[in-house]
């Protein structure tokens, strides 16, 4: 202190001798290092100042000191917003305190305000900011205590995440739930706009939350004496709201439609709601917004309320339909599938994909119930315990996968993710955590099957994160190893389908190591995860042409399966052994002797027949059919057309039985179409043109059906075009030139727009080139022929066709 006093004396003297110098100069000259004090109180202590003259009042206003104001977040014409926290020590919670503008008269108005507020406070919904407390302050000013939403505003979220149309539609669909919820309770929000929607991001799951019910509450409170006083926000408020006419739920749908339109266009338009409707729709079209989604927006934003959706639920249903349609366009985004589903006999990869979907139990019909019933059943069971729920979802998945109706589970999976996201992991005990992880894994499996890879990977990530919390618990080590290896194997499938080579490999290697540790520590634990990790590693290395590594892992997989058939027996292990032989067959086909490949495949078939045993299980039947298809493919490649044809006859028979057992399974349907097409080829090669034509036509009929049900799918279009060309080629050969030309034209018309969308896809190039060559459109086809020759897709029939058309063959 005496040191300080000395400094003060020196400062005093220095300024006495020269009072022209500034305080900072003075300090510097005296060699005193100190930051010069701010001159303004507002800079130096603005927060405390605000607290004294704002915060203190908030506390006074809302009566009592249960909340401590931390800082002012916002103040504007409508209201003042403060960040605060519970200060009574009951529990740790950050809240938002909002003082609304305007004064309310005591009596009726006050009662009404409190009633509305109570309504919202009583009915919590994840999509609505929760009102925790509220009332009228000293000056009759309404105040609210709201939950604090820890997340970005809608626009910021969309921008940060670079959401695509589907992502946007999903957010808006979730908003519909919240809106429907309040509408049913007679509340209209009246101010839906991006600024009033925040996106809560709990455990990685995004969920939109409606905030700011200021206008709604005001409207409810002032309706009696000042109708039409509430205008909402420009560009978002519905015409009837702007005109001061009575509004209902449909006004909110108008605003929601504008919000979606604005989100679709992003920063390119400042306020989409202020554009004329035609201009708005034109811009959406130019921005590439899918037609169906534009229609949804159009319907929301009609001038007349009667022309809009009748309710948020109706809008939600439409958005859901749109969202659900796309996943049905199987294979569109997966290069693996595009390759698989494309030309000719590329049944191999499709079969592998189908196998990946297969699970444990037997065929059943009872789960084909509609989504509503399923949901109800599932919802009811949910409360019976996480375990049961997880079991059900897993079991349903297996059963529905067989009949190709995983789409029925989408809602269940999304709901369970929502439910899980609301859990506070800190409140869970270890068994509950494990169940949470299982639930995330199950949901991820559904998303993966629906080709929502991002959602699937997110879910798996959550599962892994939760498992990490019990990592050090010795008591749960076994469950942890089982669950983690399961998640990793599933994750590898998703990553593989996304073409993530390194990640897939890393995930599989980790899975193999964990599964290895599992069986080492617990001799009675299942060896299936280890087998599956080895098998998948084998396929993975084959896909990336690492033959030696692939062989090693496949032999390891076979050893496990073979041993387990001896030790445990059972259909499961027989199928696993069959799968191992099947994989080894392809390994031999690609890296070894073709004859060895056929031998291995024979063994796979023999074991598969044993697995089938007496009963015809849908899975084993499908497995058998796939093996037959593959056998036919290999035999064709080796020139054994008779053998191939025999295999195809059985494959087609099996396929027809499967078709009858699971009529909804698109995958089976497609597989049957391939069988017919391939069977047509084998018959043609044998010289049996009549049988060939008959099979081609059957294949064509199924492809037409699939393409009609799956409009917009490139794969389905290409499959159909290929079948059209096959029928046409043979028809022409048999003398039906005119009929053939009509079919080629149809094929060309079908595949040309697809090819224009993806001009580098070699399968689309091939199909279109064949059709054009047959139609004699030589000028147009030339660049395609060059591309096909360059990519090595030109096979014997193609070259024959070129020669026939007078082209040069390299």
């Amino acid at each position, binding site marked *: *202190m005496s*040191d*300080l*006093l000395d*400094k*003060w004396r020196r*400062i*005093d003297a220095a*300024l*006495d001798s020269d*009072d022209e*110098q*500034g*305080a*900072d100069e*003075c*300090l510097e000259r005296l060699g*005193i*290092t*100190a*930051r*010069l*004090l701010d*001159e*303004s*109180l*507002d800079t*130096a*202590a*603005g*927060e*405390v*100042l*605000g*607290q*004294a*003259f*704002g915060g*203190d*009042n908030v*506390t*006074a206003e809302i009566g009592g*000191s249960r909340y*401590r104001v*931390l*800082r*002012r977040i916002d*103040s504007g*014409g409508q209201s*003042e917003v403060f960040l605060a926290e519970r*200060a*009574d*020590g009951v*529990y*740790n919670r950050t809240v938002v305190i909002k003082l609304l*503008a305007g004064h309310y008269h005591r009596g009726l108005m006050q009662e009404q305000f409190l009633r509305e507020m109570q309504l919202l406070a009583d009915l919590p919904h994840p999509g609505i900011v929760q009102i925790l407390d509220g009332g009228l302050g000293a000056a009759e000013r309404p105040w609210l205590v709201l939950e604090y939403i820890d997340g970005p505003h809608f626009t910021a979220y969309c921008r940060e995440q670079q959401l695509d149309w589907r992502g946007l539609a999903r957010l808006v669909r979730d908003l519909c739930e919240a809106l429907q919820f309040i509408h049913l309770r007679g509340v209209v929000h009246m101010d839906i706009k991006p600024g009033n929607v925040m996106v809560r991001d709990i455990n990685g799951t995004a969920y939109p939350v409606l905030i700011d019910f200021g206008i709604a509450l005001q409207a409810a409170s002032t309706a009696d004496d000042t109708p039409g006083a509430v205008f909402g926000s420009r560009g978002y408020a519905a015409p009837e709201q702007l005109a001061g006419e009575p509004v209902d739920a449909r006004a909110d749908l108008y605003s929601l439609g504008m919000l979606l339109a604005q989100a679709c266009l992003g920063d390119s338009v400042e306020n989409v709601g202020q554009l004329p409707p035609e201009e708005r729709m034109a811009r959406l079209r130019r921005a590439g917004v899918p037609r169906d989604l534009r229609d949804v927006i159009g319907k929301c934003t009609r001038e007349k309320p009667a022309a809009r959706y009748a309710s948020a639920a109706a809008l939600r249903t439409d958005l859901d339909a749109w969202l659900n349609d796309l996943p049905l366009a199987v294979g569109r985004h997966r290069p693996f599938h595009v390759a698989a589903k494309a030309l000719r006999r590329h049944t191999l990869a499709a079969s592998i994909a189908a196998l990946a979907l297969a699970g444990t139990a037997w065929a059943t019909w009872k789960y084909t119930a509609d989504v509503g019933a399923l949901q109800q059943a599932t919802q009811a069971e949910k409360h019976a315990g996480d375990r049961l729920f997880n079991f059900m979802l897993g079991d349903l998945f297996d059963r529905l996968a067989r009949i190709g109706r995983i789409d029925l589970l989408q809602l269940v999976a999304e709901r369970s993710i929502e439910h899980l996201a609301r859990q506070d992991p800190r409140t869970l005990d270890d068994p509950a955590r494990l169940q949470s992880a299982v639930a995330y894994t199950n949901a991820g499996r559904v998303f993966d099957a629906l080709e929502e890879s991002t959602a699937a990977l997110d879910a798996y990530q959550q599962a892994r994160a939760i498992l990490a919390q019990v990592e050090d618990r010795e008591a749960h080590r076994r469950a942890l190893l089982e669950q983690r290896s399961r998640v990793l194997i599933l994750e590898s499938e998703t990553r593989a389908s996304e073409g993530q080579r390194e990640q897939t490999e890393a995930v599989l290697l980790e899975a193999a190591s964990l599964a290895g540790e599992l069986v080492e520590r617990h001799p009675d634990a299942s060896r299936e995860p280890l087998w599956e990790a080895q098998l998948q590693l084998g396929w993975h290395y084959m896909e990336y042409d690492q033959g030696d590594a692939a062989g090693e892992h496949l032999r390891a997989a076979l050893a496990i399966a073979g041993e387990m058939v001896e030790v445990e027996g059972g259909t499961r292990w027989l199928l696993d052994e069959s799968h191992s032989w099947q994989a080894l067959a392809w390994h031999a086909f690609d890296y070894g002797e073709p004859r060895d490949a056929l031998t291995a495949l024979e063994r796979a078939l023999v074991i598969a027949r044993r697995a089938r045993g007496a009963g015809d299980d849908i899975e084993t039947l499908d497995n058998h059919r796939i093996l037959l298809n593959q056998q036919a493919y290999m035999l064709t490649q080796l020139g054994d057309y008779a053998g191939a044809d025999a295999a195809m006859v059985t494959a087609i028979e099996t396929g027809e039985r499967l078709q009858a057992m699971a009529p909804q399974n698109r995958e089976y349907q497609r597989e049957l179409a391939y069988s017919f097409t391939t069977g047509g080829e084998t018959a043609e090669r044998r010289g049996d043109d009549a049988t060939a034509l008959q099979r081609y036509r059957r294949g064509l009929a199924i492809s037409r059906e699939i393409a009609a049900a799956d409009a917009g799918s490139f794969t389905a279009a290409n499959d159909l075009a290929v079948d059209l060309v096959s029928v046409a080629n043979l028809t022409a050969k048999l003398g039906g030139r005119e009929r053939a030309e009509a079919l080629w034209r149809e094929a060309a018309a079908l595949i040309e727009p697809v090819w224009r969308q993806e001009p580098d896809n070699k399968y689309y190039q091939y199909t279109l080139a064949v059709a054009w060559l047959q139609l004699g459109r030589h000028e147009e086809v030339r660049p395609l022929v060059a591309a096909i020759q360059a990519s090595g897709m030109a096979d014997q029939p193609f070259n024959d066709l070129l020669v026939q058309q007078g082209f040069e063959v390299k």
Partner: protein
Amino acid sequence: MAPHGAGGRGNNLDGLDSRITEMLNTHSASFSPAQEQGMAEVYAQLKDIAHRQRLKVSKHGLNTTALANEAWLKYSDRPRDFNDRKHFFAYCAVAMRHILYNLARHNRLATMVDVDQELQRLPVYEQSEFLVDMERHLVALEAYSPRLEKVFTYRFFGEMEMAEIAEVLGVSERTALRDWKKARAMLSAALGG
């Protein structure tokens, strides 16, 4: 979290007014006892004005001069203990200093009770630390030179013009300005070191 009410009466903002009055009464300001008595009233007045102004001012841009001005307008309607605007402003400055000090103490106590790292990083708590330190040094400064302390208080807490400060204290404007520089440098040295 520890209950913030644990500190008893001293933590209760509702008791702020009476405590301010009490504190001001013991402060050796050059006001008459009647003026000192009116201090609580001034505080209430300031609060009331700030409250009404709040929706007009943006964010934290609370203008203390505007506050005092409006308070004065209200006072000048009915002549009371203040015979001129300058004395009233000086009075407001002292009130402001004590309002903030008291609040800062309260805030600091809250952070001591509740060892929440997150909370302590908030500007409001950093500023509270600053204000409590400032008060300690102002008391020392008063011991060193009562006039320096007053000049500083009027300028910093009341945002008064130099001419007005000079008039209130009965010194030349040049002296008031020199005193302000001295006090500012001294407090900077104290707070910085």
